[in-house]
């Protein structure tokens, strides 16, 4: 074990620790404040577990979960919004429906393979050459079957 470092070195280390402590306190305070206001609306790119929009989406998808056979390919459609909202909404849906294969509406292969479509807070257009049949009303959305002639 070395002897204690000289005063300047100790001062640098003390400043380092104090700085880190302040940073931790500030970040923790911000996290607690964020948690307290988690119910507020926020753009899709800033969604987190427990936030209002995520809980809304979770409630919507709860009526899909376990209802469709595993590995079913589903197209997910949501309204446009700031901060690339459809993309993030699609990713959260994929997370919340892990047993399904959730495709975005702009993926050609996904549209062709999909047999169902989830519309969340929007009225969807059917994939080309097909029409939609409503099979289930969801909380804030609808589940359609894609019928291809």
């Amino acid at each position, binding site marked *: *074990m*070395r*002897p*204690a*470092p*000289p005063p*300047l*070195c*100790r001062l*640098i*280390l*003390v400043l*380092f*620790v104090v*700085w*880190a*402590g302040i*940073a*931790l306190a*500030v*970040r*923790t305070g*911000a*996290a607690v404040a*964020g*948690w307290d206001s*988690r119910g507020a609306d926020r753009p899709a790119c800033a969604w*987190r*577990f*427990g936030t209002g929009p995520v809980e809304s989406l979770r409630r919507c998808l709860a009526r899909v979960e376990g209802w469709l056979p*595993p*590995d079913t390919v589903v197209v997910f459609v949501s309204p446009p919004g700031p901060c690339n909202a459809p993309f993030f909404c699609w*990713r*959260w849906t*994929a*997370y919340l429906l*892990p*047993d399904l*294969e959730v*495709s*975005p509406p702009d*993926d050609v*292969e*996904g549209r062709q393979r999909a047999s169902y479509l989830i519309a969340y807070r929007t009225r969807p257009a059917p994939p080309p050459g097909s029409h939609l049949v409503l099979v289930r009303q969801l909380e804030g959305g609808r589940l359609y079957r894609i019928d291809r002639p």
Partner: protein
Amino acid sequence: MPPLLAAVAAATALTFAGSRFAAALAGPRDSALYRLVLYTLAGWVGLHLLLTALGLAGLPWRLPVVLAALAAATVLAWRWLPAPAGRTWLPSDLGWGEGLALAALAVFAAGALSAWIASPDFVFHWGLKGHRFYLAGGVDYGYLGARWNWVVHPDYPTLLPELFAVTALAAGRFDEPAMMLWSAAAFALLLAALREALRRAATSRFAAQAALAGVAMALAAYGIGGLSAGGADWLIALALAAALPPLLSPVDRRGAAQIGLAAAFAAASKVEGVPLAASLVGIYAARAWAARAAAPARQSGPDGAKYPSSQDPSSQDSRDSRKPRKTSPGIDLRFALALVLPAAAVTLPWLAEVWHHHLFLDYNSGPLAPERLPRVLAAIADRMDESWNGFGYGLLLLPLLVLDRRLRALAAVVSLQLLFYLYVYLSVRIDAVALVQASFPRLVLHLLPAVLTAAVVALDRRAGSRLEGQEPLPPPAGAGLDSALAPDLAPEPESDLDSEAAEDLDSDPPSAPEAPAPVPGLPSERSERSERSERSDRSEAAGSAAESDPAERSEPAPAAASERSPRSERSVRSEAADSPWAAPPPLRA
């Protein structure tokens, strides 16, 4: 089983399973906390290999199957692997820095368990893959290969989703807070590894406590503000931190095994871990080569075999005087296997699956575009401190590490990793600036804990040298990357350090003390004992203690014990007794 309890049980079982590799991984110089790190990493890597094997065999990941495979592997390890090294005891005298570090860890863990600070990447790919693998009973390559699933990074290594899947198997369901526990565990292990590095570097108590507290709080602040829980970046940071102690120590086979394990762990964790694994292995091999090349002239033994001077059969350190030693520069097979095999065992199956299922994404790499460099550097400068509260600039301390010969190996590893990141930014087929903005703060996490810790070591050493009226020790001639000083030996400004390293390279790691066997009458230019004695005197003059925390050792290293002169041993003991790091006297297992 409640999910949190399932996560704790899974982590405990994996650490227990990993402890079967103790004889190869841990030795007398490793503290109890560092052993815990090594065993845990071994357990996690072992689980990854086991699940990979189950997948190749077509067996689904169901709880009975995984438990049976784990039990079979443990029994086989019990039967065939050597007994673990002697027991050690956890430290019982935590200092103020360790207390602050634990508090920071607790704050982070609380935030993580609430899932409020979960990484977006947990949602977008890590957690989703873990849940999917749990439901599918294995790595679902069909799912990963779907065109629209490029966003889940289908070509990434799968250790973290596997940990999630196993937790869900044990719990019977996928539960976010339970999954976050793995990040808290990785953070705790990272702190334990950094503590070992500070101990191994014989850092002064004040500096060690300050470093541990400061780094822990800085990381916790980032972990909370930067939303890092549930992501794989903690694992990469842990891999580098776990490699720090052997990088600070002389090259030997046990160090090679530790580096090999850290490399395998990095490679299994995330794609950035693959180059990290390569640089860890490469730098350690280069150190070994340099140590060999710098070894002093060999001497002939009675059987005509050549011996390094430090392994002369007449020396008391020679454990088997009849056994000829390799004399040609290079690395022996067991050393090479310990260093390379774990990472190869992890990387090759992963590469094969990625290739077989066409999972590698086209946008990952393209032709190098140096013209992007100004924009990329500007974006890095802009994002250097994103979420890091100013600590991100700690990476600029890298040149300070190069000035300290003992830290050059780490500096080389970190520099290579930064160069790799720069290469990626200059070659991806997507907007590089957007990629920097999205990823760079997370990449800082990989490197910053080790860099900040090493910077404190460098600062403390330079300050300590000045305090004693000495300049920092110069590098040994021709040592190159071999900058390590023996941590359990006295600092050696002369080139006999390299013979020490070369000896360590050849020798079997001591797992139990053996009585030295003097072989009188053999030719020796210089008595080993007197050489050690001189060295110890030099070390005392340099004011460095040999073992900073002897209380955590179960048994003294036989070599180290015999190498120390009685004087230096007394000095170490008295310092240990005075040292607040010291724990109650160890009990032998």
